[in-house]
């Protein structure tokens, strides 16, 4: 009888094992086999090959895929108020966008959420932004005389695509960084080279940055940011699924559906929304006042800053933009961030220290904000040198 019992329960246990194996198959197989799936390359060769491939293909190859962005920055938990689409929500959790790329002037990016979808379709001279929640189609015109090549407009922060994130990070490769290449990794089921950039400075909070380049097309498929002392990436954006076949042309055509509101907007002349404009102005304003201390990975930004101003601003925003909940969310975030801050003091005075996995910020009582991807000790040291 006992034997029979064991045999019987063996079936669900086997089922669980098979399911577990199926879920973990990708990473497990990659880890177990471990054999280099690609010929070895130095970082330099790799980048050169990538550049050559880009030239040969005249930019990116047509492709489509799903990009997933995961952030676990160690921020205090956000109150779950402001829906899935707020930009602040990108700071935690997992988000997915679908990308179709049909060549230089044919791009579609869709952000699907439950019973909802935001689309950005760029097709040569025609660009549309479609928000199914608002039932609104916005015709985007790119101002012709800006003289610059139109960047990839995306519905969310612009570093969402791995291409751009990779470019940005590659630009920082210099004497501050140790670079190596891993040739047995896999992203979205494809063998990739991983370019690993590790800061040399000990005060940096960044352990390393990994950029995965497709082994065949050299297209960046994934960027991962590892914080010191954590095995999982603090921030990751990359393809979970990708195919290098030209997507169907229907993806790049858009006709506003009957009954939808149609708006017009021109990029470069006036911004899509007032809020974005305000935000940009504010950012420019801040940038003017900011001062950079140090270099490379341990750069610390020092900004004149008043806590009460910020609170007032958040409150004002709240009243003005309560409709989409973003103001509320910002305010709530601010509150919870301040709650988690630890008071510090030194010869330079005293202040509040906010730490996350990748970023440390110090609000001094004399009206300065210091922030950088550095250890709290480094930040306090910088505060003292001012």
């Amino acid at each position, binding site marked *: 009888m006992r034997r029979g019992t064991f045999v019987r329960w063996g079936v669900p246990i086997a089922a669980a094992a098979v399911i577990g194996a199926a879920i973990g198959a990708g990473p497990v197989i990659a880890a177990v086999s471990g054999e280099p799936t690609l010929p070895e390359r130095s970082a330099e060769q790799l980048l050169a090959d990538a550049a050559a491939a880009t030239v040969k293909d005249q930019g990116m190859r047509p492709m489509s895929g799903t990009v997933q962005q995961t952030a676990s920055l160690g921020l205090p938990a956000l109150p779950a108020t402001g829906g899935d689409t707020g930009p602040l929500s990108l700071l935690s959790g997992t988000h997915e966008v679908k990308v179709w790329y049909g060549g230089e002037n044919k791009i579609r990016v869709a952000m699907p959420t439950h019973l909802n979808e935001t689309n950005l379709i760029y097709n040569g001279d025609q660009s549309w932004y479609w928000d199914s929640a608002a039932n609104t189609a916005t015709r985007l015109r790119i101002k012709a005389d800006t003289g610059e090549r139109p960047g990839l407009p995306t519905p969310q922060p612009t570093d969402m695509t791995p291409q751009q994130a990779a470019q940005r990070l590659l630009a920082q490769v210099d004497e501050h960084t140790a670079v190596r290449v891993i040739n047995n990794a896999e992203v979205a089921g494809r063998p990739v080279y991983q370019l690993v950039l590790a800061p040399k400075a000990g005060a940096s909070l960044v352990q390393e940055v990994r950029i995965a380049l497709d082994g065949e097309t050299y297209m960046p498929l994934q960027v991962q940011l590892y914080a010191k002392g954590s095995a999982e990436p603090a921030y990751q954006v990359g393809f979970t699924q990708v195919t290098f076949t030209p997507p169907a042309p229907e993806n790049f055509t858009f006709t506003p559906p*009957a009954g939808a509101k149609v708006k017009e907007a021109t990029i470069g002349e006036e911004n899509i929304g007032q809020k974005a404009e305000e935000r940009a102005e504010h950012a420019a304003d801040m940038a003017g006042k900011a001062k950079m201390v140090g270099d490379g990975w341990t750069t610390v930004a020092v900004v004149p800053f008043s806590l009460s101003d910020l609170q007032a601003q958040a409150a004002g925003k709240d009243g003005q933009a309560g409709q989409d909940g973003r103001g509320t969310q910002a305010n709530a975030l601010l509150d919870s961030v301040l709650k988690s801050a630890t008071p510090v003091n030194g010869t330079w005075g005293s202040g509040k220290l906010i730490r996350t996995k990748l970023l440390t910020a110090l609000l001094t009582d004399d009206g300065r904000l210091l922030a950088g991807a550095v250890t709290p000790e480094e930040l306090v040291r910088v505060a003292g040198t001012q």
Partner: protein
Amino acid sequence: MSTAETRTQAGAGAAAAGQLRRMPGLVPVTETLRTVERRAPEPLTRDADEDAGEGTGGFTGGDAAGGLRIGAFWRLLGSELALTFRRPRNMALLAVLGVVPVILGIGLRLASSTAGDGEMGGVVQNLAGNSLMLTFLSFSFLVLLLMPVAVSVVAGDAIAGEAGGGTLRYLLAAPAGRGRLLAVKYLNAVVFGYAVTAVVAVTALLTGLALFPGGSVTLLSGTTITVGEGLLRILLAVGYVGAAMAALAAVALALSTFTEVAIGAIAGTLVLLVVCQVVRAVPALAPVTPYLLPTRFTDFDGVLRDPVDYAALRDGLLSFAAYIALFGSIAWARFSGKDITS
């Protein structure tokens, strides 16, 4: 039955059967009839019975006809379905689920006629222009709680209800066969799950057609498709949501084999469901959410995208299949070895 494996048989040559051994006086137990001579059993055939008796016909041997066995399986399933769909409680559940889309439709109709532009959410605005949208809206409204309640009532009741009523012992003595009974019970729950889904879809569709102007359907991606294609996509969504209910039914059925109190299995399933929802709402537990069953329930909206998000549908169906395999085998392991003492 594992006893069958360990059963020892008298040798085939022991043919001197047919004589009752007499008991000479009081027979102490230790000496009882160990020496009874027995024939090796022969395969059971009923041909003699059938030939001989007009009154005893209607039974056939176990090995006689595979076709009959399959027929008997469908007969039991038919009996099960009749029991499920004639039971007032289950019909009340279906009726409630049929009424909700109607209420939803009327509510939205009233809201859209009173509210001005811009005050309404996108889905509602969508609805104003396309009648088929009410089906998807009803699904998204019902798929996380009300439909699972109906399905777990039937699936959770499947074994526990029979055990609690004592009918399980008679079914098994009939003999229904444990694997067969479990399979029939599960298929019955799956059919009920699809019935629930179909009832919601059909009433929502009819309400939508009655209350909102027909015509073309706008997808979430902003693309417009014909009504025919829209109906096809509703069919896809029904298939997907029904599969989701089938996965839930497997969980409820597994719980049902662990108790003799039907309400316990039903409540257990619903508690699991609510716990899953709570876990999904906690950001810190985000890594777990892709593996939770309810996470996939709402992915039917993949059919509303252009192109249809088959990847999401496939992932959902795969996860349903995994849940069905896991909980189905748990139910089987438990039920096939369970001592029926009720």
